[in-house]
């Protein structure tokens, strides 16, 4: 479907679970694979999504409801009754170590402040009651994990799968805060929480989720995890990560099992609007003429940024590049173009690079910066970043004019006046 430029939500109703039986739970995949759906989730439009993302990033405190009102408590398995293999967990790529949860919002509570961090983290299912959770040193989850480690305490974690898409968008916030409050802001109402089976009111869980797994992560015991197909569309190498013992699974009676396809639009787009919004705000503070920022899927929605600029002086594009590159550690290349270039179209951006840049003066290279380890061309966490100023000079009389078909002609000419109805289908 992706190769045909189609991004429908796919639902598979008869999927074998890891015990080899047809699972009770249908598998839903590609929920986040379209910007239109993400915009719909928060009542926005594709054009306005980044700005609406910022608007929604306001706290609405969650509310606690009784377990009897919580859909996620309709089926409860605890202790030895827990069997993760009853779930239709997907193995995605040839060299993946095995089945992975790819949609979980993993909740970890700060042992000092009580704030809860929510992060989309992939998890290797290593046994019927055991998980190995991937950790990224740059993430807030690890910041909290280190606090537990200092206290020599195992970490209670909540692994949640399946909720309103606005929940997932809110959970992508970069703010270090009590994130269930931000999720409420995105959903436009307080998030309903209910006590966990394992820790009661000490650790709360999302009440209307499809599936919640309550687990305890070791602060000292590690196990093998990965290879796994990452967002860069390369396998990350095998590594050691914390062993996690599952204590309980609760779910809706008619729960869906949500899967996210790693390295594809389903995975890449979920936080693209958030990155675009952050970059836009950062750049706007320095260069007010920024019009829009786009993180294209062709750059894994992390490594490349296209920036549209209404330029007022010729120093602005490089200022944009330096500002953007230091605002997100994963961002590696920035392409700055004029307002007449459609940044949602890779071909238009490359056309601007082809015709509006001279690399002896327009290319900016910044070696030795912090990047992502997942970039196979980087030297571990050290990477070379850069950007291209593909804008015209401010002085319009010093540059050629772009060809145009008059607007009046485009409006007047109608394809149906020239083509048979059958031929129209291909246009």
């Amino acid at each position, binding site marked *: 479907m992706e190769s045909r430029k189609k991004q429908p939500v796919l639902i598979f109703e008869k999927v074998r679970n890891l015990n080899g039986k047809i699972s009770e739970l249908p598998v839903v995949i590609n929920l986040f694979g379209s910007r239109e759906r993400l915009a719909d989730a928060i009542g926005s439009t594709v054009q306005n999504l980044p700005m609406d993302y910022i608007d929604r990033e306001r706290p609405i405190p969650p509310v606690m409801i009784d377990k009897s009102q919580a859909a996620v408590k309709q089926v409860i398995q605890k202790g030895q009754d827990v069997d993760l293999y009853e779930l239709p967990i997907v193995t995605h790529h040839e060299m993946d170590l*095995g089945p992975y949860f790819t949609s979980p919002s993993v909740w970890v509570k700060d042992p000092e402040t009580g704030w809860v961090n929510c992060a989309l983290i992939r998890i290797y299912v290593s046994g019927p009651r055991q998980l190995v959770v991937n950790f990224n040193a740059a993430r807030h989850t690890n910041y909290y994990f280190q606090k537990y480690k200092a206290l020599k305490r195992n970490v209670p974690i909540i692994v949640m799968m399946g909720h309103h898409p606005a929940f997932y968008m809110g959970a992508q916030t970069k703010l270090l805060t009590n994130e269930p409050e931000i999720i409420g802001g995105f959903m436009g109402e307080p998030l309903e929480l209910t006590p966990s089976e394992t820790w009661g009111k000490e650790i709360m869980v999302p009440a209307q989720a499809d599936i919640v797994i309550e687990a305890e992560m070791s602060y000292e015991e590690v196990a093998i995890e990965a290879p796994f197909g990452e967002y860069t569309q390369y396998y990350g190498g095998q590594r050691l990560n914390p062993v996690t013992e599952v204590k309980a699974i609760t779910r809706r009676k008619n729960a869906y099992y949500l899967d996210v396809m790693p390295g594809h639009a389903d995975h890449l787009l979920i936080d693209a609007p958030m990155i675009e919004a952050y970059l836009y705000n950062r750049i706007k503070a320095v260069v007010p003429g920024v019009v829009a920022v786009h993180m294209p899927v062709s750059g894994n929605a992390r490594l490349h940024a296209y920036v549209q600029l209404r330029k007022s002086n010729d120093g602005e594009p490089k200022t944009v590049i330096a500002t953007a590159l230091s605002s997100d550690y994963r961002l590696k290349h920035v392409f700055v173009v004029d307002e007449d270039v459609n940044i949602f179209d890779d071909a238009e951006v490359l056309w601007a690079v082809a015709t509006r840049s001279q690399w002896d003066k327009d290319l900016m290279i910044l070696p030795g910066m912090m990047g992502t380890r997942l970039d196979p061309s980087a030297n571990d966490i050290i990477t070379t970043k850069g950007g291209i100023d593909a804008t015209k000079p401010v002085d319009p009389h010093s540059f050629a004019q772009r060809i145009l078909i008059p607007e009046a002609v485009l409006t007047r000419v109608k394809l149906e006046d020239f083509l048979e109805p059958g031929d129209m289908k291909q246009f």
Partner: protein
Amino acid sequence: MAKVHYVECSVCRREYYLDRILSEALVSNPALKLKCPFCRKEFSVAKKQEEMGGKCA
């Protein structure tokens, strides 16, 4: 991830790679159990070193 550290599974003989930290851990502890993504069996590079007369895998 500039350098990838390939290992050969001693069970199925297929190759895959480790991250830097795990590959460094193997130097000090060659008996550390790895898990092959192809045959899903556990193995250690120490076994292969023995087969090769103590040479590095």
